[in-house]
């Protein structure tokens, strides 16, 4: 509960304190959150977890069957760490000259509450509620702080309606599952116990998939992504790509796969195909983008495609690689958007008008390069181990698919190095004079350390999530056994 109420409380405090102190509040809150995470749920206990997703708090809500139930295991823990760890950097990215900074901070903090809830909820209905709760603040952030001018409302409302409608599919599925349980419960455990028939499972799967495919997004449900990322303020793009994207992937892993295990074999080839199309499709489009944010948006499409493909292979290599890559993508994409925000302040973010920034900003160029090669999955950076495992899992599933998915390592090098070349290297264009502020260095430095650390020691990370992934794998094979 502290992860839900904390941010909400902080949101209101931040709103009341006004522009100046808002960053401090947000920072303090995140530190507290991380501290609670480490103190109450020490890493060693997670590694030795034997039981499945442990219930840590349980509050009855509507009648006796609907609860706010919160669980904790390695998977939840690591996603909470990602959410609460990235949040201060996202808040820091809001420039002090931004009008109503306390308002956007409030929205971001409210979103944090929603996200935390999503990753912790063990009750279907509260999972859905937090899921939507996270959507509302980001809607206002993109609406009120968007850069697209008069198209603003159109893009935002499209994004909102689209993702909202997708989520309704999930709500239907959850309610239907609820009606099948004897006790009329939404509890994760109860839902898992259900043995669905073929038709039931197909229907429920489609409902879930609607929500998750839009949120991840999977090709061809990505229509909302590029424009929303491009026109959102930096903080919004970071929230969307760094954390919110992971909601969909998390949903697939925790809810869709175990609950719909009965008919996964039916969907599996199509889902993997769509994921791989997304990898290549996003990569190819990214090659020619000149707006740096749009480029990163398409690169995200490509990267989450690979993560999704890995999940859908239903192998522990794919799961481990995917979860690692969720975290890594969060770090790298926030790093990239952060760097792009700085570049934008210096001389805009259109690659046609950029060039040679490395000359005046050599240190920044090095750090930006970290995120670039991290995204391009160079060995010894955080992108490599996850991508290695994911590609291996897809290749083991189906070798031709693996080859197509593998094209990402070529495409990614093409668009990432192109972006770096045109912004940092080459002839100096424009006359950027501004200095990069001390406060801006801080997130860059911290995030770039994680680019290296996770690249060299991924196993420590995997140890944390392994018990939960094993558990999920077990649930899937149980569910699969029902029909065969």
């Amino acid at each position: 509960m502290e992860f839900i109420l904390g941010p909400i409380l902080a949101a209101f405090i931040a709103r009341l304190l006004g522009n100046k102190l808002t960053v401090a509040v947000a920072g303090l809150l995140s530190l507290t959150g991380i501290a609670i995470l480490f103190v109450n749920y020490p890493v060693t206990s997670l590694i030795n977890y034997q039981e499945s997703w442990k219930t840590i708090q349980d509050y009855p809500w509507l009648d006796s069957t609907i609860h706010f139930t919160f669980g904790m295991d390695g998977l939840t823990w690591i996603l909470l760490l990602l959410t609460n760890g990235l949040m201060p950097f996202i808040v820091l990215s809001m420039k002090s000259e931004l009008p109503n900074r306390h308002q956007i901070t409030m929205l971001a903090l409210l979103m944090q509450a929603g996200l935390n809830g999503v990753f912790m909820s063990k009750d279907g209905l509260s999972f859905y509620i937090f899921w939507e709760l996270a959507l509302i603040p980001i809607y206002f952030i993109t609406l009120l702080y968007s850069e697209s001018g008069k198209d603003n409302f159109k893009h935002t409302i499209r994004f909102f309606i689209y993702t909202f409608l997708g989520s309704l599919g999930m709500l239907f599925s959850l309610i239907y599952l609820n009606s099948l349980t004897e006790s009329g419960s939404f509890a994760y455990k109860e839902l898992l116990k259900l043995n669905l028939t073929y038709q039931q499972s197909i229907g429920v799967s489609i409902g879930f998939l609607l929500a998750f495919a839009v949120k991840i997004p999977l090709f061809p449900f990505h229509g909302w992504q590029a424009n929303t990322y491009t026109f959102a303020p930096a903080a919004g793009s970071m929230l969307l790509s760094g954390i919110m994207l992971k909601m969909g992937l998390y949903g697939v892993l925790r809810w869709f796969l175990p609950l719909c295990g009965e008919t996964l074999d039916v969907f599996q080839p199509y889902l993997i195909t769509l994921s791989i199309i997304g990898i290549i499709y996003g990569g190819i489009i990214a090659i020619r983008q000149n707006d740096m944010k749009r480029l990163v948006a398409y690169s995200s499409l490509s990267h989450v495609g690979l993560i999704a493909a890995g999940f859908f292979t239903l192998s522990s290599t794919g799961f481990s690689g995917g979860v690692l890559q969720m975290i890594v993508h969060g770090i790298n994409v926030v790093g990239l958007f952060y760097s792009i925000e700085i570049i934008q302040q210096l001389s805009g973010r259109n690659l046609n008008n950029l060039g040679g920034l490395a000359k005046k900003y050599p240190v920044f160029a090095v750090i930006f390069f970290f995120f670039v090669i991290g995204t391009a999955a160079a060995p010894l950076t955080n992108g490599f181990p996850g991508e290695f495992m994911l590609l291996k899992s897809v290749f083991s599933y189906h070798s031709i698919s693996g080859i197509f998915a593998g094209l990402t390592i070529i495409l990614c090098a093409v668009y990432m190095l192109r972006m770096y070349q045109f912004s940092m290297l080459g002839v100096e264009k424009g006359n950027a004079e501004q200095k990069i502020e001390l406060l801006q260095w801080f997130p860059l430095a911290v995030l770039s350390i994680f680019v290296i650390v996770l690249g060299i020691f991924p196993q420590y990370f995997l140890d944390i999530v392994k018990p939960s992934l094993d558990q999920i794998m077990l649930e899937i094979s149980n569910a699969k056994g029902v029909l065969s």
Partner: protein
Amino acid sequence: MNSIALILGLPLIGFIINGVIGKQLPKIVSGLLGISTILIAFILTASKLSQFVSNESFSESLKLFTFLNVDNLVLEASFKFDRLSIWMTMIITGIGTLIHVYSMAYMWNDEGFHKFFSYLNFFVFNMLMLVLGSNFLMLFFGWEGVGLCSYLLIGFWYSRPEYGKAARKAFIMNRIGDLGLLLGMFLLIHQFGTLDYDGVIEGISQGKTSAGMLTAISMLLFVGAMGKSAQIPLYTWLPDAMAGPTPVSALIHAATMVTAGIYLIVRTQVLFEMAPFTSEFIFWIGLSTSILAALIGLKQNDIKKVLAYSTVSQLGFMFVALGCGAYTTAMFHLTTHAFFKALLFLGAGSVIHGVHHEQDIRLMGGLKSKMPITYITFLIGTLAITGFPFLSGFFSKDEILTHVFEHNKIGYGLMVFSALLTGIYMFRMFFVTFHGSYRNTHFSFDKVHESPMGMTLPLIVLAVLSLIGGALNLPEYLTHQSGILANWLKPILTIEETKHAISHSTEYILIGVAILVFVTALLFTRSKYVSNHHVPKDEESTGVQGYMENKFYVDELYNTIFVKPLEGLSDILGNFFESKVISPLSFGINSVLTKVGKLNRYIQDGNIEKYLLYMVIGVVILIGINLFI
């Protein structure tokens, strides 16, 4: 402390120190730091040699930590000194030290001095990881790491956009090869459940896999080698890579990194022994590459470009040897080539330095009087590569030719042709650069100067190595015993290399042919470029020569069939498909909702009478349903 840890760690420390605080350090400290890390690594490696001499099966390993452990696949960060990796380490650190020394003088006035040394150290670290790793994963780490360093160093002078383009081209073409290597690794995991060299070799000996699978794996690994070692069709990045500073060309693009493909195949020879199709494929790819590159080299006028194509061609020779199953021979040529090609590149750098950053040999000429040390060392390098009797290149190339003669007679004919071309393009460049008269009107001859000692000293050392390098593996007909390298590698070669089946008399004839080829090339070019004072013309040639000058339009071809279509596809998808298909698909629902909203607005217009009417209709319908159903 484990010596492997030190050998690997020193260059890494050099990289970090120079990378982080290099700018604050005086140049001399920064440079000496870069040199000393590699030099100490070299000395440590050399001191290990004796243990190998006294104990045939000696090896030393270092396990750092578990990198990944998922799904019964354990990947360790572990390293191993064996006879092959220590041989490579000697070359990398030895030549690396010389090139670091040279760089100190060469790059002294460059503002990125410390950055250069930090990159160079990082390169050595990655290269050592590549050869010392005891599994494919560590090899892949080093493999991609050296690619990254190569990218950074080709684009070292990053304010020139065309250099940046060359750097990206190198990285991307290497990535294509890397994908092959990666897929090969996945197949290995699939077949053997491990990426350890030992585990794979054991798995093969236990017959865990089929012949078809071995062919697939070896082909994929070779795709990786094609990228890194610049073979057809992935060779076009290497000539462009000459945009980097010349010491980089010497170290990365001649002596060490580009030989990683050869190392990979020697390391995994078991696989290739069992896959005759792949070996044959390698043989012909190597052969065609060596001829194609040599033909292009004939018509290049940039001193570094000639050497670049020469490198591609010589790497082709090594692959030819590998294709014949002559692994020792390939390693031998790799070693001698490292000596003389590093020498030639550094010599070229010295020339470029002496004539004020001019690289066009048409604007040189007569440099021998002004740059005597460069001249003599360059001559030695030229003689070594063209196969002057008893110099290093003579022995190694002769060994390859003998193997090819046994393997395939047509291939032998083509190899001799390729060797002839080598002689011609090398002497052409040599004579045009150092003989005749000086031709650059923009930079007066008086200002042409010999390079400082920091540069000439490495040249002299490398020249000596090029002279006597052949001693590392003298042929049997001279010494009546197998050579040093052959004995050295024998314990780690899993398959006994076949002794030459041909008689000594045939061997003497083959040597005679080789010498004849050398003399022909020398006399031909001498009469053309020295006696007749011929200078390559500026205008474009026509016919076949035109094709050679334009590198057979391969870059243009790739541009037309790969780059342009990809960009076109990107535009179509990004501009058309996204807005005309994806967008309506996603937001059609939006307009439906808007229409429903409008309909609703029409119904709920605030008119009470209408509402009552709707209510009555509703009630009637409900009653009707109840009555009739």
